[in-house]
């Protein structure tokens, strides 16, 4: 099976300091991958690099067979990449379903003049999109908020709203940046189940997460970072017993 994403020799420097250095790994399709590591290990930086938010200083990234280094996020989205954010990036100036509909942007009629004139083709597509958004909101467990403004929703619901928005694009790969951060045990369990359901639907999931229980539970493959470098890689069983990981990370916990 060929990899969905290949990263080789990835390095990112901020003001002379390497946030990520010489990192190489592969993402296999259909699996749940996790990236773990202590605070400041470079996990979010890695996400920002592979999703095009940052441009790498060195190294190669390819996704779905294309060299994506330096590609802007919207071009990567076209290739089927989608993500959520550690600190929420919900559009508070819109309603909840509209946020999800934004996620479907690439699958809609985006022509300017028909939109301006409200041609039937546009309104028809939009109505379908609205239904799809509602369906996705139910899928992530947000049926209560079908009429809500985003700024009226609690934190936990916003985290799921981001997932719904990311799914709306029907991505091949979904990157989730700490989906369980700030959630209680109950909510975490629900997120856990949700991620598995997403993976079952055939979407490759890449996860950054602090909650070890969640990570160990659901990951097929784990990448451990420390100070921007790869510390270890393998199945959850392998990671659990890796002495370096234990001393650097798990041991401390």
């Amino acid at each position: 099976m060929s990899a969905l994403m290949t990263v080789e020799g990835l390095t990112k420097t901020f003001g002379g300091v390497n946030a990520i250095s010489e990192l190489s790994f592969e993402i296999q399709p259909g699996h749940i991958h996790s990236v773990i590591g202590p605070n400041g290990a470079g996990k979010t930086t890695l996400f920002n690099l592979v999703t095009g938010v940052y441009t790498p200083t060195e190294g190669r990234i390819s996704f779905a067979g294309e060299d994506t280094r330096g590609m802007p996020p919207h071009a990567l989205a076209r290739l089927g990449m989608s993500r959520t954010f550690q600190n929420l990036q919900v559009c508070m100036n819109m309603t909840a379903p509209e946020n999800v509909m934004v996620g479907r942007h690439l699958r809609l009629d985006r022509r300017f003049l028909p939109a301006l004139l409200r041609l039937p083709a546009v309104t028809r597509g939009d109505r379908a999109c609205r239904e799809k958004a509602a369906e996705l909101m139910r899928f992530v467990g947000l049926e209560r908020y079908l009429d809500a403004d985003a700024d009226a929703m609690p934190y936990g619901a916003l985290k799921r709203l981001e997932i719904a928005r990311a799914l709306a694009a029907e991505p091949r790969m979904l990157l989730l940046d700490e989906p369980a951060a700030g959630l209680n045990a109950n909510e975490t369990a629900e997120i856990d189940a949700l991620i598995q359901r997403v993976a079952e639907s055939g979407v490759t999931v890449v996860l950054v997460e602090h909650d070890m229980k969640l990570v160990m539970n659901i990951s097929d493959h784990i990448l451990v970072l420390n100070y921007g470098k790869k510390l270890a890689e393998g199945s959850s069983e392998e990671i659990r017993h890796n002495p370096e990981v234990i001393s650097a990370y798990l041991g401390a916990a």
Partner: protein
Amino acid sequence: MWNRFRNPYAGLPVLAIVLAVLPLAFSNPYHYDVAIHVLINAVVAVGLNLLIGYAGQISLGHAGFFGLGAYTTGILSGVYGWPPLLSVLAALVVVGVLAFAVARPILRLSGHYLAMATLGLGILISIVISTEGWLTGGPDGMIVPTISVFGWELFGETRWYWVMAVLLLVAVWLALNLIDSPVGRALRAVHGSEVAAQVAGVNTISYKVLIFVVSAVFAALMGTASAHYSGFITPDLAGFFHSIEFVTMVVLGGMASTYGALIGAVILTTLPQLLTGFDDLEMVIFGAILMAVMIFMPRGLVPTLTARLRKGS
């Protein structure tokens, strides 16, 4: 109650009726004159609101486009004798092309840097208009011929009122259409979270450029209307203060509210007429009102008041 506020199209027939009935209250051409200025400003504000209120990109230079539109049609029809309708079209093209040419580098900026760049652009346009007196008449202004369409002369306050009223209705309708479409959602997402929009596949810079050009063309169209209606234009039209007035209409009435922009235009246009009795204190009162509204209703009049009504219901 709820849903009535939710469906923005419900406001269109109300607006149409108000516009149709309003002239009954007019007793002389001066009233029409003020109303026409309100309508002209309202269209500019509705367009600018797409940029500022919905896409979240500030511009302190839109009077530059307004003025450039006015002068392009003024020069082409007045100096070179083009048919006015053609010169209006040419003005839209000129402004559209200019806005498109500068939009990309300008809209890469954000916040106060964006404010500075748009301000600078507007001031540059007004300096050129004021300096190239051989073409524009300089600071003392130039005369612009009236407009006629297939022999029907657009002249006099009543005719202008009806034409502008229809234009406003169309402008509001177009704006509402755009806001509630994939394009409009992408724009609002740019405002809400630029990075989220990008990740969702929105080419944010293209959308910013698009809406910048659209709002510039709205302003230019009204610039041409203002020129042909007044019959006389001066570089003040393109000046910094005029830009600030437009922005204030949008913000005072309520950002991201098409009807808010409209209300803002009504207030900002009629208030100075109402304050003339205060003579030397006019500026003090005007400044105090601006501050008070923005301090107590930072989201603007219409969104704040509708939110209160909603809570009340």
